[in-house]
């Protein structure tokens, strides 16, 4: 299929975290999820930039949630993984799985 660039690992993690958070996923929640999973500090800027990049590549869509009290009238941006995004995640997973194939046993030795 000749895809130019495969999803990077951080991009995969972000996409997966978006799906993990599920309905109403937004940046701070995604960040929190990532930090909890990786058990280390994640750069806030990296998360935001990645979200925007994924969106530019059509792997994410975002929608504006109505302004809530306490945010000074600023909207909250909800993100959702697109079917294209899901497809790419699956593809990467398939590549990786095939690469991992047969290595688990060796590792456990």
């Amino acid at each position, binding site marked *: 299929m000749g895809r130019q660039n495969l999803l990077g690992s951080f991009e995969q993690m972000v996409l997966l975290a978006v799906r993990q958070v599920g309905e109403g996923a937004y940046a701070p929640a995604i960040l929190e999820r990532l930090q909890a999973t990786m058990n280390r500090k994640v750069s806030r*800027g990296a998360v935001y930039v990645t979200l925007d990049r994924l969106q530019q590549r059509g792997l994410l869509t975002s929608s504006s949630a109505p302004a809530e009290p*306490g945010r000074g009238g*600023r*909207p*909250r941006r909800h993100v959702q993984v697109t079917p294209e995004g899901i497809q790419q995640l699956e593809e990467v997973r398939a590549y990786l799985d095939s690469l991992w194939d047969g290595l688990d046993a060796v590792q456990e030795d």
Partner: protein
Amino acid sequence: MARTGASTAPGWCVGLLARCVPGRLSCESLLGDLEAHADELVDQRGVLAARAWLRWETLAVASRYARARLNGSLRSTPPSPHSSHLPDRHSFMNTLLQDVVYGIRSLRSTPGTTAALLFILVLGIGALVATFSLVEAALLSPLPYPAQERLVWAATTFEGYPNPVGSAPDWADYRERSSSFSEFGAVTPFFLPVTVVTEREPSRVKHAYATWNLFRTLGVEPVLGRWFTETEGELGTTVAMVSYRFWQEQLGGEADVIGESVRVDGEAHTLVGVMPPDFHFLLEVDVWRPMQMGGPFAGARRFHNWLMIGRLRDGVSLEQAQSDVDVISRDLQREYPDSNETKALALTPLAEAITGSVGPQLLLMMATAGLVLVVAGSNVASLLLARGSTRQAELAIRAALGASRSRIIRQLTIESLVLGMVAGVGGIVAASWLSGMMLRVIPLSVLGIEDLDMSIAAILFGLAVTVVISLLFGTAPALRVIPDRPSEALRSGRGSVGAGNQLRSGLVVAQVAVAVVLLIGSALLVRSFISLSGQRPGFSPQQLLSAEINLSGSQQESTDERRAFFDELATRLEALPGVEAVALATQLPIRNPGNNIGIWDADAPPDTVQKPLAYQRIVRAGYFAALQIPLVAGRTFDAGAGLDGEFELIISRDLAETLFPGEGAVGRRLMPDWGGDLVGLVVGVVEDVRVGALADADAPTFYANYVRSPERTMNIAIRTRGVPSAIVPELRAVLLDLDPTVPLGDIRTMEDLIADSIGQPRLMSIAMGLFSATALVLSLVGLYGILAQAVTQRRREFGLRVALGAERSNIVAIVLRSGMLRVGLGLAVGIPAALASTRLLEGFLFDVAPVDPIAFASVAVLLAAVGLIACLVPAVRALRVDPVISLRAE
């Protein structure tokens, strides 16, 4: 929950993100997320921490976005069907407006720094524009006479030395014989108070004599009536011209006053003309009478009372006119060897002659104000550089986002222009107020300038200065902080601050040097003022009240009546319990300067040329006791002396030593140059007294007893027991009782008069002192600022040094050395500069050399001391550096 100030992103954060983050929703929601998080932090870690976090995190996120865009992993903006790569006609104005808004925003984001910069600049620009408006009024605007460039001042010279004034017969000869002038006039450069009685009321006004053609020479037409005519310049006619003000105030401003009769000092004069409202020549005069040959001040060739002004004929140059009058001078020298043997005439353009006295002062003030502005401007540059190093990240982001270098330069230029313009407008407003104060330091009344409005030229000058200052000190240093390779600047989180620091260091040295020059200048003026106010006037000015008493409008016509009046006045005043003594004299020291004539040894008349000059004072017996002028030899006037005795004179020590060096003066006979053969006997010698200002050297003086010739106008000095002004009501009562028509003029205490006489040097040294103190403070702020920043930047190094066992005192020494090195360099540049420039002050200094070692040394010591203090604060801060913390911070 209500949003607190701490969790609201400041304008620059919003602006920064708007530029970095593609898409409005992304940006707005990002801000919302950041602010919401900051809100939580307020509760957990406090307002300050939340505020700091918000700013820091914004920068961090923005720099992530910038790097993503730099390496192409993120597009700048979402593609839009309307986007075009062709330049938009409106985009220039749009981005310009953006830049202005952004500039204002970024200035508002640091209100403290901005306020400090504004204050410094407003003061600097205000001072410079204020002095400029004086310079403009005095030096750049031409004299208010038609074709004023053809007017020349003809100063009489003796053996080449100029004497401002010439004699009436000489004036007549030059006027008649010279072919270079279309008109040649003269005026008394002093005024003589006269009592003028109109139909309304008697008033005491300022009056001068002018040749019949003076106004023709100046080319100023009367608004009403006519000029004097040539025949009115001859003895016998009594006419007068008046000022517009006099016409309005005393004559009711009515058109039919021409031809009316007014009484001037008791004599009827026909009014022939009214001068225009803005007419002014040298003095504020209300009544002019024509010079009449053989009349007042226009007698012999040896009496010099007239300031002569010529109007050059068309096509005649100053040089041609000068050689023309030189020929006449040589003829006059031959014709009148008695009086004219060494006399000649020197021509100077009138504008130059009039402004010559104030020009150096004005230029000095303007140069000083300019230097202060340079120091202020370099402080601004220094502060901007300091700010610039923290703004490197921001600038790098902007470069990364595709802003071209020229765009960033434009942004920085606009930013400093925004700051500069606010300061410029403030400075011009401040100048309109400061120029009033400047006028008190440098009075321009000789030019008829009592009040100054900001002229268009001054406002334009202020704006031009503002632009230059903004570009020079705002943009130029800002260019130094534009990162060459933005990606590196971003990655390291800080830019290359080294270049900016070097520039700042150079600025500090320059500031210190300028401050040294200004401080030395003002130290010289202060020392000069101190030695001036330490001058003893030669009499005791404490508890001495003075006033003028004029009998010209009263019934006391004969000398006997006048003497009786003044004797009675003195006797009655002396009987008052508050009065210790009373002195009466034609002229009192300090109060009434001037009036010198020749006087010589009657038994050994000098050759025709070298006649010693002395001030003449006609005084009533008791004068020396009342003024407490010590007697050196002989005796003072006898109170009971009558008219029949010998004509007695008392002379000052100075005159005694001039006339009779090494011999006793008492008993010698002197002849004053009164034109007769009256010879006086010296009965006493008294101490020298300052005749005019305290700065004047002691002047040779002779005193005659007033019994022979009590003048119409006498000045009275009353030595009181208590506060001098307390005696005024009693003085008025006594005078009213004696003769209600006699006015009491210009009541002043002697101490006030002395303070006035040194008022201008005092204001001048205060003004210079303020200027140089400002420069000093500004340069110390600059020094402190750069050291404080250096200490912050070298914290890690200091930490390492301490960790590796360096003594803390070594650290202090490092900081002190680097600070004092700059102070030393500043002194090394400033002191030679001061040596070269203080000679400009020579004309303003009294009894102090322009290279006065005390002034130089004290400034050097002062600067070293305050410089040390400015260095100590950051040095102590460096001392507190905890190696563990500073190393961990990296």
